[in-house]
């Protein structure tokens, strides 16, 4: 079985389209939250994921757009995007997002947005966080998003966790060693590379492929400008942050 693993789409339809084309045929699609927020295509992105029967969880921006976490918890430009998204989301798509569970378990994988101990806000960026996190999920592997940076943490007993920077050139084998995996962000990568980031799990091969899919950044920037989004939100898509 091949599974497409995406996260942090952030209402970026051109980036999601590029990823789905690049991904090819998969049996399942999993999404690790922050489906909306920041970008100008929330309804189109939600509807595409619904059509794909995506197994999804919400992130902090989805919850902010739904009014389930206070907008004061976001910086100004994110607040703008959440408020804008609230106003344009259809009732049907709002209901879809509102019905998503905070965590999902699919086979050997637990899916959360932040960390298994704090699924909404905490960032899984360093081995110290990963070392603690291994105590908070029962499955062999955990998939996280939220940082927008592709990374893998392998459990290392008393030593805690070893971190791996994945690349497209070398799939990461999944073995008996427990692992926490971040596929990076589709709609707003934050590692200095503006190309959409995602992963494919191939259970026959026993590995994860990490991929980058370039997309038409200028097209979404034009739409954001037309909708009068803050300039910084628009510009940064070209920088990869």
């Amino acid at each position, binding site marked *: 079985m091949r599974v497409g693993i995406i996260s942090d789409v952030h209402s970026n339809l051109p980036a999601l389209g590029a990823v789905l084309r690049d991904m090819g045929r998969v049996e399942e699609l999993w999404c690790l939250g922050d489906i909306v927020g920041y970008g100008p295509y929330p309804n189109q992105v939600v509807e595409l994921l619904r059509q794909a029967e995506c197994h999804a969880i919400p992130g902090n921006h989805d919850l902010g757009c739904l009014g389930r976490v206070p907008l004061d918890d976001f*910086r100004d430009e994110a607040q703008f995007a959440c408020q804008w998204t609230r106003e344009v989301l259809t009732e049907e798509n709002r209901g879809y997002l509102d019905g998503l569970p905070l965590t999902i378990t699919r086979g050997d994988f637990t899916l959360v947005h932040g960390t298994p101990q704090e699924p909404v806000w905490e960032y899984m960026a360093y081995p110290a966080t990963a070392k603690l996190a291994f105590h908070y999920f029962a499955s062999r592997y955990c998939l996280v998003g939220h940082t927008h940076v592709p990374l893998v943490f392998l459990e290392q007993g008393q030593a805690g966790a070893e971190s791996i920077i994945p690349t497209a050139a070398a799939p990461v084998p999944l073995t008996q060693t427990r692992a926490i995996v971040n596929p990076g962000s589709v709609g707003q990568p934050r590692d200095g590379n503006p190309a959409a980031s995602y992963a494919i799990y191939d259970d026959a091969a026993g590995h994860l492929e990490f991929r980058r899919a370039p997309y038409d950044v200028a097209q979404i920037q034009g739409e954001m400008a037309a909708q009068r989004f803050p300039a910084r939100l628009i510009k940064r898509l070209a920088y990869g942050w």
Partner: protein
Amino acid sequence: MDTRPVADVLTVFNQWRAGTILDAEERQALRVQPASRVSTSGTEGTFADVLRQAGDGVSQGGR
């Protein structure tokens, strides 16, 4: 496999989260050095000072 220290690939994320990241135009407008080289003490001022001058506010914790 990428053999860089993880901290290297988190540089952009950490600067974004701290609210200190500047794009090329902002750096040029403010005539400051690249982000990693700006002094955080002494007479050059801190990133927060730079961002205040730019009217961009200070970090709200990367959210």
